């Protein structure tokens, strides 16, 4: 099949075959990263605008490298130091950027639904690089690619997503993707960090770390979104780290071949003990590398394949 969508906004709306297409395309893109000259002409003459309203190093850089390796021109438009701080609305900024005729706008914004808003307003392709606590589809795709590489398959695997699920777009995108792919998902954390009625999305809920990670193939630790937490959701970082931080000791009941993932950036010593983050089960750096491949695939499918079709 070919790619038919104008935008990539959510995992929730994707068909299984579309997820497969992106992952397969990404797998083939990985070969480029291994070359001495990391450049293919696929998107030559095309322009990608990174529009980031939240601080981000990893994701923005990843999209930037992905675009550049495909020979696209990449411009970065960050909210700090742009007209966003002068009160220009998201829509106005987007219209201004569109007037410069980009082929793809990659957007990150603190408001859930911001990517949909842009996609409706703009004729060019829009990639959601994280909208509020809603979705972060390329993160879920790179997570799936990483798991598939390490485990050889996805269907039937079990995953524990641990931590600040309530504020996590990474968790939501992964839940949708993993459920579509036939994986079993448990979300775990203190009840104040578990979103209401999340069971209705087809996941199990656990309120004990050891129980949640005991028999799973993958442990995905989430960043504790300190900057978003208001209203006393946890008593202290110290207590959180004690009960929810993944340490060598808490891993003792886990499987021998478990994968440990984290979307980054890691709060070392809070959700992940350093010896675990850097330990043998950790695939955190594989995730970062796969992030570039997935974003190359997405940009190619949105800007390249569609235009040639």
């Amino acid at each position, binding site marked *: 099949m070919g790619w038919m969508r104008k935008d990539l906004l959510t995992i*929730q709306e994707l068909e299984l075959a579309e997820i497969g297409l992106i992952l397969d395309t990404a797998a083939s893109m990985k070969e480029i990263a291994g070359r001495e000259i990391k450049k293919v002409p696929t998107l030559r003459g095309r322009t990608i605008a990174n529009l980031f309203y939240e601080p981000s190093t990893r994701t923005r850089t990843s999209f930037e490298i992905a675009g550049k390796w495909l020979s696209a021109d990449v411009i970065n438009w960050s909210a700090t130091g742009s007209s966003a701080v002068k009160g220009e*609305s*998201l*829509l106005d900024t987007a219209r201004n950027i569109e007037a410069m005729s980009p082929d793809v706008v990659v957007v990150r*914004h*603190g*408001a*859930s*639904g*911001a990517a*949909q*808003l842009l996609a409706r307003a703009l004729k060019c392709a829009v990639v959601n690089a994280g*909208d*509020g*606590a*809603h*979705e972060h589809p390329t993160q879920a795709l790179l997570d799936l690619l990483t798991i598939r590489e390490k485990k050889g398959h996805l269907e039937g695997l079990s995953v524990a997503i641990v931590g600040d699920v309530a504020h996590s*777009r990474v968790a*939501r995108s992964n839940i949708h993707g993993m459920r579509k792919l036939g994986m079993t998902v448990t979300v775990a954390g203190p009840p104040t960090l578990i*979103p*209401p*009625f*999340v069971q*209705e*999305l087809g996941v199990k809920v656990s309120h004990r770390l050891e129980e949640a990670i005991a028999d799973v193939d993958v442990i995905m630790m989430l960043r504790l979104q300190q900057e978003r937490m*208001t*209203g006393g959701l946890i008593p202290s970082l110290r207590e959180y780290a004690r009960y929810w931080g993944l340490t060598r000791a808490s891993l003792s009941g886990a499987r021998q071949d478990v994968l440990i993932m984290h979307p980054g950036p890691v709060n070392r010593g809070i959700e992940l003990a350093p010896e675990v983050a850097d330990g043998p089960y950790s695939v955190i750096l594989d995730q970062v590398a796969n992030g570039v491949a997935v974003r190359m695939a997405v940009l190619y499918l949105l800007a390249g394949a569609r235009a040639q079709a």
Partner: protein
Amino acid sequence: MNALIKGGRVLDPANGVDTVQDLLIQDGKVARLARGLKAPEGTPTIDASGKVVCPGFIDIHVHLREPGFEYKETVATGTKAAAAGGFTAVACMANTNPVNDNRSVTDYIRAKARSEGFVRVYPIGAVTRGLEGKELAELAELAEAGCVAYSDDGLPIMNSALLRRAMEYTLPFGLPIISHAEDAHLVQGGVMNEGVVSTELGLRGWPAAAEEVMAARDCCLAELTGAHVHIAHISTAGAVRLVKEAKARGIRVSAEVTPHHLLLTEEAIRGYDPNTKMAPPLRTKRDQEALLEALADGTIDCIATDHAPHALSEKEGDFDGAAFGIVGLETAASVLLDRLVRPGLLPLPTLVERFTAGPARVLNLPGGSLAPGVEADVTILDLERELTIDPSGFHSKSRNTPFGGWRVTGMPWMTLIGGRVVMWERVIKGAIVQ
């Protein structure tokens, strides 16, 4: 003003009238109701055959935005919208700038209504100075100036002791306190109902309990003080249950419901349309069913639109950043006739009662009746007219409605105030009424 409205189905729930007959208006008042009335010499005749002749609709919860927010709405445009929607009277909330927490603002609104208004305007005074929830506004003088109720609508009064004192202090004036039942701490940045949809959309939830704990508190304080508390825009099954229990125990509590809470649920928010964002938020199907049942059985006394105009720039961006509220005056009757009355979910006489006698009773307003001798405020409905709701044709300054594009059958066909036609076929006739 004299007129003879001929051949309509006169539906006046307050007086138990529901029969095809003529209505004679003389000197701006209802003169006679009977079949086969002859128009006296020089009296214009309105042919209402096939239509429904009701007491003028009353909306006790609108935001006219003047003074201070004239870019959203003015007394002139808001009352035009009211007339177009079949309303003959509105009560306007105090969250203007300056706040209607003192006599001069009340005087200003009433003067504007007299000179530029198209329907009757009843100001609602603030409970607390500046809506700050800290100290009482000059409540006696607001009553003397003509306010018909008190409310800090838009903001809850979190200090229960202060609300208690407001209830006690205003007892002698006989004006109710209208409660925007929302526990600010429980809402804490919420923008939609808390539930599986908010979880999916990644939007911060606003639990039903935030309304229910305040509705419960308000009922307790009404019981303590003997005051009349009116729960604005009730939205949850739990709050309905509380009101029902309180009423059964003889507590002076009343409640209103909006058309949007009756017709829409949180599912409408998928897609992040800012025109589905309001306070309280759209709730669940179960809540919606409880609201309809309570409206039918009288637990909920009246329908009110919470007409809340906002400029396009405040309603076109991201959901979190958008303003709360939607306009409702020009769509309320049509959408409810089409979605509740036509399918048989609510009898027409009940709907009309909740638009007329119900709200008049809650705020102790004149109107809501076609008894001989009363001011001839009349709303005539055409139940068969089909239309597509087109926000670009609104008389309101604002267009923020979730009902745009709805195909509906039924609309207010004519609005008369004091026997004078102020709206006919959605066209405002330009009459200044007061």
